[in-house]
């Protein structure tokens, strides 16, 4: 049996005392949310924090709400809730889709959106989907709050801009412009409990149904130390009609935008091929979603 090292467990009563606590304990403390990552790492002896801080009593971290201009998700919302949310399926289907393929049902019932972000795993499911819609996170400390775009949040595997005294409190999704669609596809060796060999999240915004592309984000995951943009693929799609031929060309360019490694899950060359396939499929599905939405609203 794998045993946990000793630590002290704290449950601050509200956000203010949580922030005080993090300010005084700093690197000696880690926040435990769902525990699906931190408990594994502690059992394996990779980390051994002196204090675990649970924010279970800080109610404001558990909401998933529609705001005037978008959706705000508390950092402690569990992944199952994202996968079950009609609000997300309607407005940001790629995020709900990414949530529905994370880990296993048992993991999804504990793992949280904030946890999937702060652990900064190169193959995590939610960050690419969130980045494709330009998500921001709110970080709070005793000294104040700041908002950071996820694009600028990750520094490398396991490394982020979050300071030891800060708490990731919410994820902010700004309302997407009309005629937007997206998709997330992960390739794994099996269908559950899988870490991506490659995953791609794409989001397009057209000027009108069947129109030209006004904005596009293609996020490639598990092919670099952190999630990256397929920069040249995004570039040739701008202000063009998303024809099959153009999507094919963009997908080929996406292969050159990534620098995968060979490891136990797949070779670098294979990963590049898959980047092409998944870029093509996610883009085509994203465009389809725009046109499908339009049909619905006309009814």
């Amino acid at each position, binding site marked *: *049996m*794998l*045993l*946990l*090292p*000793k*630590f*002290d*467990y704290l449950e601050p009563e509200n956000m203010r005392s949580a922030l005080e606590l993090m300010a005084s304990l700093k690197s000696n403390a880690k926040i*435990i949310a*769902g*525990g*699906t990552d931190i*408990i*594994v790492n502690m*059992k*394996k002896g990779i980390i051994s924090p002196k204090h*675990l801080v*649970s924010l*279970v009593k800080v109610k404001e971290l558990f909401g998933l709400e529609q705001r005037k201009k978008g959706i705000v998700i508390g950092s402690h919302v569990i992944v*199952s809730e994202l996968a079950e949310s009609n609000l997300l399926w309607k407005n940001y289907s790629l995020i709900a889709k990414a949530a529905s393929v994370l*880990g*296993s*049902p*048992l*993991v999804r*019932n*504990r793992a949280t959106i904030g946890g999937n972000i702060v652990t900064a795993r190169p193959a995590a499911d939610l960050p690419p989907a969130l980045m494709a819609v330009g998500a921001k996170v709110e970080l709070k400390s005793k000294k104040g709050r700041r908002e950071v775009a996820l694009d600028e949040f990750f520094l490398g595997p396991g490394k982020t801009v979050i300071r030891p005294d800060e708490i990731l409190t919410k994820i902010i999704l700004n309302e997407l412009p009309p005629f937007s669609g997206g998709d997330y596809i992960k390739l794994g060796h099996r*269908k*559950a*409990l899988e870490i991506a060999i490659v995953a791609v999240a794409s989001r397009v915004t057209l000027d009108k149904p069947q129109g030209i592309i006004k904005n596009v984000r293609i996020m490639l995951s598990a092919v670099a130390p952190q999630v990256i943009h397929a920069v040249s693929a995004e570039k040739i799609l701008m202000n063009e009609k998303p024809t099959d031929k153009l999507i094919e060309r963009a997908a080929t360019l996406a292969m050159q935008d990534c620098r995968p490694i060979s490891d136990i899950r797949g070779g670098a060359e294979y990963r590049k091929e898959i980047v092409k396939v998944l870029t093509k499929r996610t883009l085509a599905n994203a465009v389809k979603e725009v046109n499908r939405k339009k049909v619905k609203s006309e009814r």
Partner: protein
Amino acid sequence: MKKMITLFVNDKEYEIAVLPNRTLTQVLREDLSLLGTKEGCGLGDCGACTVILDGRPVNSCLVLAVQANGSQITTIEGVAEGQSLHPVQQAFVDHGAIQCGFCTPGMILSAKSLLEKNAHPTELEVREALSGNLCRCTGYQKIVEAVQTAAKTMKKTSGRKRG
């Protein structure tokens, strides 16, 4: 330092003092002697430690007992009604869906949760719902068939109750 917690396990209230570094699996097995919950990998991969925590099946090896304070927990011991097996348990026996039995408590709890949310699951939905529970004996086919049979039995009995 030990913390006092309250757990509601299979509709029974327990007040216990636990060290923060003990998992829910450990406390259920060692303090409450509920040995039906198994520990397999201890890392959230195998699902042998599955319990239903506040309505959702979870890996109890990845839950600190202190985190479960105040929660409602169902373990395999709380599934049967008196002497009669739950329809999912009965179907597992009838279909030979149990071989060594180590994964069975977790399988049954995941299946029970599924059927409470979705009374008519497709084969794919059954496989998906059980995807966090690994079985090294059966090859899954008999387990999936057992869950589908249980779905039918449960429908019949609930229909009878209503009528």
